């Protein structure tokens, strides 16, 4: 285990292929792919990086990130990552999971990976819905939110309330870094029409880098990233981004939930 040092890079990223992504307009998956590629380049880890592609909209990431990949079954990415990490401890292993993948079908694997302090990095894209299967309710779907399996709005009396993965993992002593960020640009009031700030993305870039630094120090790192799914939310891209600011963020507040190694202080 050794500390990773950042070297700023500009221009084309070596960790990114030339393949255009399949993501829908306004989707933040592409943003996260870019942030990960940038972190891989700047931390100099591309040649030992392995992505465990999980089932959901991130499953085709092997087309975009220029590193080794294993495509896991639904929910099992942390287990696959844990198996590989133990036999190849020098690899930098990460996964991008959706909320259905990580918080519903794969919750046990996620919790136990954290509980054992498995040195891996998990990025959770929380867009409150099953995106790839066409917009069904996820554990993170907001109360009252309409999905194809909650056509009259999510009823907590029937399905329970939203499951907060960051809060849950912060309570697991093996997790070294738990951070909730947002990949959604924020609207600012302006005289000249609508203006957006990318502060969230600049912050998220740092947390993504931290998540790799924590792994290099031997810790389990988890970064949850609030995102939109305008297509399945049946909203315009801009409405969806506004929805996150007005609703999602209130239920899932951004913040640092745990930082055992103090990487955010450095």
């Amino acid at each position, binding site marked *: 285990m050794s500390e990773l040092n950042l070297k700023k890079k500009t221009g084309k990223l070596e960790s990114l292929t030339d393949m255009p992504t399949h993501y829908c307009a306004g989707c933040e998956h592409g943003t996260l792919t870019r942030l990960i590629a940038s972190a891989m380049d700047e931390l100099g880890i*591309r*040649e*030992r*990086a*392995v992505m*465990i*592609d999980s089932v959901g909209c991130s*499953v085709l990431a*092997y087309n975009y990130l*220029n*590193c*080794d*990949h*294993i*495509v*896991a*079954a639904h929910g*099992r990415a942390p*287990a*696959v*990552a*844990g*198996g*590989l*990490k*133990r*036999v*190849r401890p*020098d*690899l930098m292993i990460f996964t991008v999971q959706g909320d259905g993948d990580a918080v519903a079908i794969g919750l*046990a*694997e996620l919790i*136990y990976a954290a509980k054992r302090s498995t040195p891996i990095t998990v990025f959770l894209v929380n867009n409150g819905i099953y995106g790839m299967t066409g917009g069904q309710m996820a554990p993170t779907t907001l109360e009252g939110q309409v999905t194809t399996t909650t056509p009259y709005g999510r009823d907590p009396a029937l399905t329970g309330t939203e499951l907060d993965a960051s809060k849950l993992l912060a309570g697991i002593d093996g997790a070294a870094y738990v951070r909730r960020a947002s990949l959604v640009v924020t609207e600012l009031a302006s005289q000249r029409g609508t203006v957006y700030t990318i502060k969230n993305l600049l912050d998220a870039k740092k947390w993504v880098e931290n998540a790799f630094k924590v792994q290099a120090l031997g810790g389990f790192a988890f970064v949850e990233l609030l995102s939109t799914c305008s297509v399945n939310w049946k909203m315009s891209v801009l409405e969806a981004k506004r929805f996150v600011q007005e609703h999602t963020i209130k239920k899932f507040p951004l913040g640092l939930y745990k930082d055992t190694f103090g990487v955010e202080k450095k």
Partner: protein
Amino acid sequence: MSAPRVYLKGNEALAYGALEAGLNAYFAYPITPSSEAPETLAKEFGNKKYPEFKIFLQSASELEAIYMVLGAAAGGVRVMTATSSPGFSLKQEGLSYAAGMELPFLVADICRAGPGLGNLGPEQSDYFQSTKGGGHGSYRLIVLAPDSVQEMVLFPRIAFDLAFKYRNPVLILGDAFIGQLKEDVEFPEFTPPEYDISSWAITGAKGREPHILNSLELDYQKHYQHISRIYEKYKQVEANEVRFEDYLTEDAETVIVAFGISARIAKGVVNRLRGKGLKVGLFRPITLWPFPRDALRKLASQGKRFLVVELNTGQMVEDVILSVGKGVTVDFLGKWGGVVPTEGEIENKVRGLEVVAV
């Protein structure tokens, strides 16, 4: 000089056999009657005699165990897990993914009675989900069926060889009897071979193109090609890797077909009936897939009759019927629920052979 003999349980022998075969990693989940395998390995972990045995971890579920095995296999090491029937059912998903991704590793299923929780006694009722590709999709496991504690020692060597040669999961299918049976065994000298993993293993894309281990292909034509290539590989396995034991079949009028513990009992019956002047032999498939179809067909062409003995309500008998062709007498004796046939029961059946399929 012969190797020293040791008195071991089947499950312990499996563990030591795997260690002697160069086991690097084991991911465990306890289930009776297979748990002595992980317990033995946990005890031996750190023993300087096995410097290559670097990872032992108890997982939180059968699912987590098989996916940890899958992840470690992607790293190109020798990895295994053992389970028993209810756990083996849970592992089917992972085995399907691993076959689609062409990953080499070893799984042992110490079969117990089912369905559901069943009980802890021996059955051979996992034959179907072992040999037909128990998960989704067109795939096979290479299946080895030991009939003794000695074979529990030796089969991990064969299993890892086949797994790496064909890049496919290999299953050792035992049963509660073979797993719990205690016999004295020997460990012949063995040096685990090196396998070339450079073209596929996940080691980091340094100085090479990325390796992508994947069972997903959204383009139908490309997926057709992928499965076709795996299918061709399976034809090679069928052509080259069939194993069976032929015991006194040459002049036999009746051939008992059985594997695992059933074959062990049947062998006793053959010896007993030979002593009484009856021409009876035993045909024991060692690879349940690839199934020794041609060898059975050859015996059938010599006019022999067959009695299939299994610890289930009739599974391998279907493959025997398919193998011998039309017009051949095939009878079946099954016991289930943990009950094992006595030699007397098998003897009576041989004497009064009935036709269940012609």
